[in-house]
C-alpha cells in the first residue's frame, strides 16, 4: 500500500552530497515529498529528513539504496508511530486594518508567532505536524496568502531507540 514515509539520514557535509541523494531518488524513480537538511553539532556531518510516498517495496529499496552511498553514514526508516515529526511554516497573509485580530487569534490557536506586522500584511511562523500545517494554510487561503515557505519535515525517533548519534559515525 502506498503511503508517506520518513527517512532520517546522517551524511557527510560536503558539496555534492545532496545531489547524490536526490539523484538516487530520480534514477530509481522514487519521488521526494520533502527534504530538509542541516549541519549537526559536528560541522563535518549533516542530518537529513526525507519524506516520500511509496509501498513496502519502495520503502525497503530506498533505505537499502541510500545506505550504499559512500557519503551516507546511515539511513533509517522512522515509523510514523515511533517518531516525532514537525514542519516549519513561514506565511505572509494579507490583512485589512481592523480585521487583524481574527488572524492573530488563528495564529495563536495554532501555536504560532507573528514575526512581522505591517499595515496590510502580517508574517506568521507556525510549527507543527504536516497535517496541522496543511489545516492552518487551508484556513489562511480565504484571507489571502501573499506567499509562504515550508521547511519540509524534520523528524527524530521517539525515546532512545533508533537514535542517530553522530559519535557512532566518526
Amino acid at each position: 500500500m502506498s503511503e508517506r514515509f520518513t527517512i532520517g539520514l546522517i551524511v557527510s557535509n560536503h558539496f555534492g552530497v545532496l545531489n547524490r541523494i536526490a539523484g538516487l531518488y530520480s534514477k530509481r524513480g522514487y519521488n521526494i515529498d520533502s527534504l530538509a537538511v542541516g549541519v549537526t553539532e559536528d560541522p563535518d556531518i549533516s542530518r537529513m529528513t526525507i519524506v516520500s510516498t511509496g509501498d513496502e517495496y519502495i520503502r525497503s529499496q530506498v533505505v537499502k539504496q541510500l545506505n550504499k552511498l559512500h557519503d551516507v553514514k546511515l539511513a533509517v526508516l522512522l515509523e510514523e508511530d515511533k517518531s516525532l515529526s514537525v514542519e516549519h511554516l513561514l506565511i505572509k497573509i494579507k490583512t485589512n486594518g481592523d480585521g487583524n485580530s481574527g488572524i492573530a487569534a488563528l495564529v495563536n490557536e495554532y501555536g504560532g508567532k507573528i514575526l512581522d506586522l505591517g499595515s496590510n500584511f502580517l508574517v506568521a511562523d507556525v510549527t507543527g505536524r504536516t497535517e496541522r500545517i496543511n489545516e492552518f494554510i487551508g484556513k489562511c487561503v480565504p484571507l489571502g496568502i501573499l506567499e509562504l515557505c515550508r521547511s519540509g519535515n524534520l523528524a527524530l525517533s521517539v525515546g532512545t531507540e533508533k537514535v542517530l548519534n553522530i559519535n557512532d559515525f566518526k
Partner: protein
Amino acid sequence: MLLSGAQILVEELVRNGVKTVFGYPGGTVLDIYDELYKNAHRLEHVISAHEQGAAHAADGYARVSGRTGVVIATSGPGATNLVTGIANAYLDSVPLVAITGNVAVSLLGRDSFQEVDIVGITQPIVKHSYIIRDVAELEFVVSEAFKIAGSGRKGPVLIDIPKSAQRDKCEYHGGFGFSAAPVPEVPDLTKALEAVSRCRKPYIYCGGGVVAAGAGDEVLSLSKRLSAPIGLSMMGLTAIPNSYGLNLGMCGMHGKYAATVAQSEADLMIAVGVRFSDRATGNIAEYTKSCTVIHIDIDDAELGKNVPSMIDLCGDAKVILTRLNEALPPMRNEEWVARVTELKKRDEAPGDDSFTPANIIRAVRESAGGDTVVATDVGQHQMWVMQHYAFEKPGTLLTSGGLGTMGFGLGAAIGGCIARGREKTVLFTGDGCFGMNLNELATAVSQKTPVLIILINNGVLGMVRQWQTMFYSERYSSTTLRRKTDFVKLAEAFGAAGRAVYTMDELREVLNGGLPEDGPFLAECRIDMNEMVFPMIPPGGSVKEIKLSQEMMI
C-alpha cells in the same frame, strides 16, 4: 616529503599495486603524463585510440587480473568519452578507478575550454566520485577510491583532478593504510537450511557474484551435496567448469533448454551472486511460481529488488556457501539427476561440419584450450559464444552483460591480453560491433597484443534484425548494412594480418597455421544473415513460450 599532486597520484597508484594504466593524454593531464613518463619503469601506460577503448581495456584488465583497473583521460571530451566504459563497469560490478583531468580550480564553473562536470555526468553510474579541489586531499582519496572500487560489490570510482591540484605541492605521508575489512558476518541460516531439507528438486543459479567472490568450488560442493543442477547467468558463465556434469549452462532469454526447463521444474532455487535481470528471468511471476528462492548476495539492495525473495542471505558468497555445505547433510536424488541429464541431451550439438556460428565457436575453443581469455562484443555472436564455447576457468570471459555495450570487445580483449602478459587472447565480434571501435586495432598492433579476432560477418545487425523478423513482421529498418568494408585489407591497413574464411577447413587452417605472437590477426567468417539465436524466450515470456528453432516461431 613535498610532492606535486601528479607525483602523489603516481606514488599512490604504485603503492596500491597498479602495474598498468590505460589512457589518453590531453591538456589537463599533461602533469600526470609527465610523471608517467618519468615513472615508466614502474608503471606501464597503454595508450588507446579513443578513451572509450581505454576504459574497456581497463575493464578487461580488471576482470582478468582480479585487480582494480585504472583509466586516465583528459577533461571535457576525454572525460565524456569514458562515460560508456564507466557505465559498463558499473552494470557489471567491475572494479575500476577512472582518473580525469579538469581545468584549474580557478577556472571551474566558467565553461572554460574543455571543461565538463564529469562528476555530475557520471553520478548515477559510479560507486563514488571525487573532485580534488585541494592537493592535500589527494593522498587519502586515491587509497579510499581503490578501497571502494575493490570491496563489497565492486564497481567504478571516479577521481576528477583539476590541473591546479596536479601542479600544487603538499606534504606526502607515504600513503594511508585502511584497516582490513571486518570478517564478514554470516547471516542466520536456519530458514535456508529448513527450506533445503524440505526440497525435492533443488536448483542452483550462479551469477557474476560467484566469480567475483571466487566461490566456484563452494558452489560445486553444494551441487554435489544436494544433487542440484546449476544454471548460470551470463556474468556467471565461468563460475564453474563447463565439463561438470550438472552444469546446465546459461539461463535466460537465450539460455540452454535444460537450464530453463530445470529451473521451471525446481522446487527450490539457491540463487548466488545474481541480480535477476529481466533478460535472465523473463516473466517474474512465472519464473518463481513453483519454487522457494534462497537469495545470497553481498549487496543487500539486490535482495528483493527484482524477485520477491523468500529467504535473503546478505554476505560473502564464499563464506555463506561454506557454512551451508558444513551444515547440510548429503542428499541423493537420482530421479532429479536423471531428469536434468535427460533435459541436457536436448542441448547437444548436431554433428555436421557446416560453417555455422556454433561450429566456428567450437573449433576456436578446441584450438584455444580452456585457459585462454575470450572477449566478445554484443548481440547474436555473443549469445552463440555463451551457448557453444565451453568455459572452464573463472575470469576467462570478458563480455558486456548489464549494459550490452556494442564496441566493448576489442578494448576489453587488449586489456585482458595485457593482464595475462600478452598471451594469446580471442575476441569474437560481429561486423556491427567491430565497426564501433575498430580503431583499437591500432592499439592492438602498437601494443603487440596477440588478439585473434574472429569476426562473424553476416552483413546485418543480427540481433536487432532477429527481433524485426520475430516481432516486427520482417520490416528490416536500418539493420541491413550494405557496407563494402574489406576487413582483411582494413586489418592490413592497421599493420595487422587477416584472412577471410568460408569453410571449417579454412578456419582450422587459420587456427593451426601459426598465428602471430606479437600482434592481432583478423579472421573474417562470412555467415548467412538469416542465422538466428535459439533457444529464445520472447521478452517478458516464460518457459512456456520457449522457441527452440525458427520453425517454432509461427
